[in-house]
Each structure stands twice: as C-alpha cells, then as structure tokens.
C-alpha cells in the first residue's frame, strides 16, 4: 500500500518534471537546476497533500465544533490564498532564491578560511546510523530556535510591525497559519537557514521537518474547540494552547507583556522560559491598538503587505504619538522592543 502510493507519487513527480519544467530548464540552459526542480515538485506535491489533508480532516472539525461562528467568512479567504502561496512553494521559492546565494557565499568564505561549520554528528557520531533519532533531535533543536524567533518577533518593535499581519486575523482558522508578511517570511527563512547551517540539518530531513511543523501549525490555528487536556498540552501545542497566543486580550502580568505561548510544537519552551499560560477558555483572536490599521483584519493580500511595510517604516521614525495599551503594564519595554501599544 505504502509502496504503491510512493511509486504513484514518484511517477507523478517525474511526469510533472518531464512535461512542465525539464523542457523549459533545458531550453534555457539551466540543466543544472533539473534536480532542484525535481525536489521542488516534491515540495509542491507534499503541499497539495497537506492542504488536502488539512481541508478534509480539519475543516469538518471546524464545522462540527466551532469556537466562533461568523455569518460572513470573507476575511478567511485571504488566509486561504496565503496558504496556497506558502504550501505550494511560491513563497518558499522566493525566500530560497533570495537567501541561497548569500548563505552559499558565507559558507564558501568559511571553507576558504579553513572553517568547517561544526555539526551535531561531530558531537554525537552515533546519529549517523539512526535517522529517526536524528530527525527527532533536529526537530527539537529547530523548534527551540523557532520559539525564540517567534518570541523576538513579538518583542522587537520593528519585527512586531511585520508579525502583526499574522495576528491581525480575527477569524482565525486552519488557514491562518500561513498568513504572514513576506518580509516576516524572509526573516524566518533566514533564521531557519542559519540555524540549519550551524547545526547541520540533513538536507534529506528538510521536507519531513517542514511537513511535521506545518501540520501541527495548521492544527494549532483551527477554529475548533479542541484541547489535548492538561497533560497533553505539556507535550504538544494544541488549538486551545495556541489560541491564547492569538488572544485579543492577553493574560495580565509581566511574563505576558509581549505575549504568551510562543511555542510552535513543544510547549516545554514556554514552560522553561516563563511564557506559558494555561487558560481553559477559548478566547477571541486578533489585535487591538496594534501597529496595523483596524482594516487589516478584513483587507486583502497586497493591502496587508503594504500596511506591514508602513508599520515597519513607522517604527524607525521618531516622535510617534503615544498609543493606548490594551493591557496597561507597570513595566516599560526595553529600548528597541515593542512598545506597550503591542496588541494583543
């Protein structure tokens, strides 16, 4: 069964390469990129499978056990567009095209200076013969890095201006996961690539790692009354757990000044670094008094991208008018960090 599926998958991958990309690449003198195109098609097909699985499994869940019911779901449509651009490889391709030459130059420079970036396997040689253990370890490391990327995107004022696009959605659904400003995606891609370079993530693990992360992220944004229970939420981020991260009204207190529940997969990071909030309710999502106009909750793709850029520019301009905090805090943010106008 699995072999038959795999064979059909590879046949389709080959057929798409033969009929769509290979002739074009060869005609353009880009024969070197045929292998990359083959991998790209794998990414695309995995994206199709993921979107299909998310729609078939999670959408019924949203219909059966919705947290919120909206008479008008038009605001969700833009998130579907984001999901297709992200999962089918358009945005990742853009990020890759922009970052790959830079990272290759850095890596090349290191080698010419006799520096070979150390890898996890240099410390733990046994990993080389244990692909599953290696996969889990890299997943853990990358999730740890993602926790800090995510937390910083809430803490640094300029980064929050971009990341607010993700949080501006007040009709949070399984599609909201991919709703990001393109610059935010680019920075996220850079972060991921640098970590991957530093610890030596096996190229063969990339697609598998992305599938695991994206699947859990789909699930964690779902508009469905679903939790993994008190114990389960210590192990894996659930929709309830992540909904508190998107809550329009965050819990009060210094630990949650810039948000709570930043973990992507494993809540342990929030627990370790004091940003965990274990609310039992399913709060409404969105931002209030944030860096974006109120219309961002309803606007289209380009408008959101433009709003994000304007908000980013505003963070570098002096004398901003004082904003009203939704959650007045006695603590002042550090210089360069997001102001107390930070939503949530």
């Amino acid at each position: 069964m699995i072999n038959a599926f795999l064979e059909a998958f590879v046949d389709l991958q080959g057929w798409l390469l033969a009929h769509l990309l290979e002739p074009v690449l060869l005609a353009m003198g880009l024969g070197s990129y045929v292998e990359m195109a083959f991998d790209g098609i794998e990414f695309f097909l995995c994206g199709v499978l993921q979107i299909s699985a998310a729609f078939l499994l999670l959408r019924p869940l949203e219909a059966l056990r919705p947290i919120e019911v909206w008479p008008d779901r038009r605001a969700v449509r833009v998130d579907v567009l984001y999901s297709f651009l992200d999962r089918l490889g358009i945005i990742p391709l853009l990020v890759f095209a922009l970052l790959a030459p830079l990272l290759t130059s850095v890596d090349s420079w290191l080698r010419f200076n006799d520096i070979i970036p150390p890898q996890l396997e240099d410390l733990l040689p046994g990993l080389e013969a244990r692909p599953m253990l290696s996969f889990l370890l890299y997943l853990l490391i990358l999730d740890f890095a993602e926790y800090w990327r995510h937390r910083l995107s809430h803490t640094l004022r300029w980064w929050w201006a971009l990341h607010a696009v993700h949080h501006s959605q007040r009709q949070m659904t399984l599609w909201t996961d991919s709703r990001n400003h393109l610059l935010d995606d680019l920075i996220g891609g850079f972060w991921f690539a640098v970590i991957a370079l530093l610890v030596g993530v096996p190229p063969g693990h990339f697609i598998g790692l992305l599938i695991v992360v994206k699947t859990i992220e789909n699930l964690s944004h779902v508009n469905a009354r679903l939790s993994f229970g008190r114990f389960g939420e210590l192990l894996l981020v659930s929709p309830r757990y992540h909904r508190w991260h998107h809550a329009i009204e965050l819990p009060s207190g210094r630990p949650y000044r810039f948000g709570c529940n930043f973990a992507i997969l494993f809540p342990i990071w929030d627990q370790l670094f004091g940003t965990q909030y274990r609310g039992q309710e399913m709060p409404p999502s969105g931002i209030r008094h944030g860096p974006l106009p109120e219309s961002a909750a309803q606007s289209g793709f380009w408008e959101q991208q433009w709003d994000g850029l304007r908000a980013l520019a505003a963070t570098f301009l002096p004398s901003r008018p004082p904003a009203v905090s939704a959650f007045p805090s006695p603590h002042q943010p550090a210089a360069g960090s997001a102001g107390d106008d930070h939503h949530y």
Partner: protein
Amino acid sequence: MSLPTPRRPIAAALLLMLLLCSNSTAHAALAIALNSADGTLSMINSDTYQVTGKASVCKEPHHLMPTPDEQSLIVACAASNQLVFFDPLSGQEQKRIRNISDPYQLGYSPNRKWFVATSLRLDRVDLYDPVDFRLVARLPAPKTPSHMAFDDASEFVFVTLQDSNEVMAINLATRKVAWVMPVAATPAGIVMSPDNRYLLVACMGDGVVEVIDWRTQKSVKKVATGKAAHNLQPKGDRRHFYVSNRTVDGSISLLDTQTMTVVERYEVPGGPDDMIVRADGKELWVTARFARKVQVLDLVSKKLKLSIPVGSSPHGVFFVNHAGLR
C-alpha cells in the same frame, strides 16, 4: 544424530568450506547503490536483483568511487563533510574521514599521488594527499565544478564547470589553474579517451558530448547523444563509452571513440545518471535519479531488463565484478 568420532573433523571442515563458499558467493554478488536524498546505501544482490538491506550513511552523499586497489568504496558525503569507506564485498563500513569539506565528486590521479574532490555547491576544487587525506591546495572554481578526469601522466585534472559552461585544467605539479576553456551548455560528466588524446565532455544543455583536444584546447567535435547528456561510463573495451541522457524519458547512447559517433541507443527512463557495466558485458546498471530506481539494461537484448526500487535520488552504483574502467 552424532557422527563417529573420526569423521567429525572432516564434516566440520566441509561445513566450514560450505559456509565460506556461500558467504563469498553472497559477497561477490553485492551491488551498492547510493541514495543522495535519503542519505542511505541500498544493498542489492546482483544475482537475484533483490534489495537485501539499507544502511544510513551520512547527509547528502553524492557519488561513490572505488579506491585504486578496489579494497574500499568511498562515499562522498557532501553535507556531512566526510568520506565514508565501505568494503565493496561485504558492505561493511570501514572508516570515516571527517573534515573533508563538502565533497561532491571524487577522483584519484592515475599515479595515485592526488585525491581530488570537487565542491559543486561552494565553487571549489580541493587537492588532498591520498595517504593521510591532508588538504594540500584549495582552488576557487566558479561556477559549480562537477565531474573530473585526468590525463594518463597525472599532469592535469580536468574539471567541468557546470554553470559557467567551461572546462578547467589544474596543473597538479604547480597546483594552479593551467587554463579554462568554453564548452557547450551545462557540462557535467568528463572522461579521457582511451588513447589519452581527447576529453569527452557530456553537456546537458545541448545534449551533446563535446570532444576536446586538451593539448591544444580546441573543440574537435560535438556528438549529439540525446537530451541532457550527463555522464559517461567505459564499456570496458577501451573503445566505447555509454552516455546517460538524463531526462525523465531518458536514454543511454553508446559512443564509439574511434569514429566519435553514436552507434547504439537504448531507452532507459527515470533520469539515468551513474552507470557501471558487468565484467561479462551483459548488463549495464544505472541509477535513475527521478524514479528511485536502479535500472538494469540487458546489453544482449538491448532492452531494459528490470528496475530495482532503491531510495530517493539514487546517485551512484557499484559492484566489484565490473568491466574495466577505461
């Protein structure tokens, strides 16, 4: 049942011989295919064509080659910065050499004084001392240095530069670039002709094998072989080379180096890439990059005999019982 005492040593010796024979037969039949995307080796019984096992090796292994004495098979682990040595008879790992920066394609000079590794991703060619794998020279080689060939005297190593459409010659005595010359689009595989006169360069972009007089650096001929001509493998008769035309539809051409013409062509789908020929000349095994298979071409009937499922992006296959490599 217990044997009478005098017969026991004889029976034991016979049993031992039987075991040794069966063991060596199994070993002699081993074929090893390398799966780049999986980071694994597939072990195949070349008599039964059954996959007998899979071993994790490293991150993104690209290409394998035997040591000159064929006591070891070296796997170039690009993303792991390692060379991993295997016993080609048993498939057992022998040793790992770390801190070999991003090895992609490997080669020993015919005089065995140099071990050369190209780094396709990082635009570089490294020259190592093959005794202790100490780095002797590191040369910039933009762009995307891919395959390599040597002249018989081991004076030069010739490297294809895939994305700048060139061939680079490095003088091994001075460890300096001797010359760079333009060739057809996207050169990949490169071999020296058996008479040491010409370099044969498989150029994917133009679907040709370009014949180069390396002493004068002149292009002599372009032989159309098929779309995406990628790699060359000697037939073992010091005259013919198989050329893999690496498209999904795929084919393999037989090039006669005396007439510099294609004399035969076989359909081999799946992106045929690296090849090896049986010692008896009856089969050609080739990794199909885009099909997760090793294809076995029957050279007698000139038809695809069967496909062996292996891992993702297979990029090299080897067995000891192979035809000559020149």
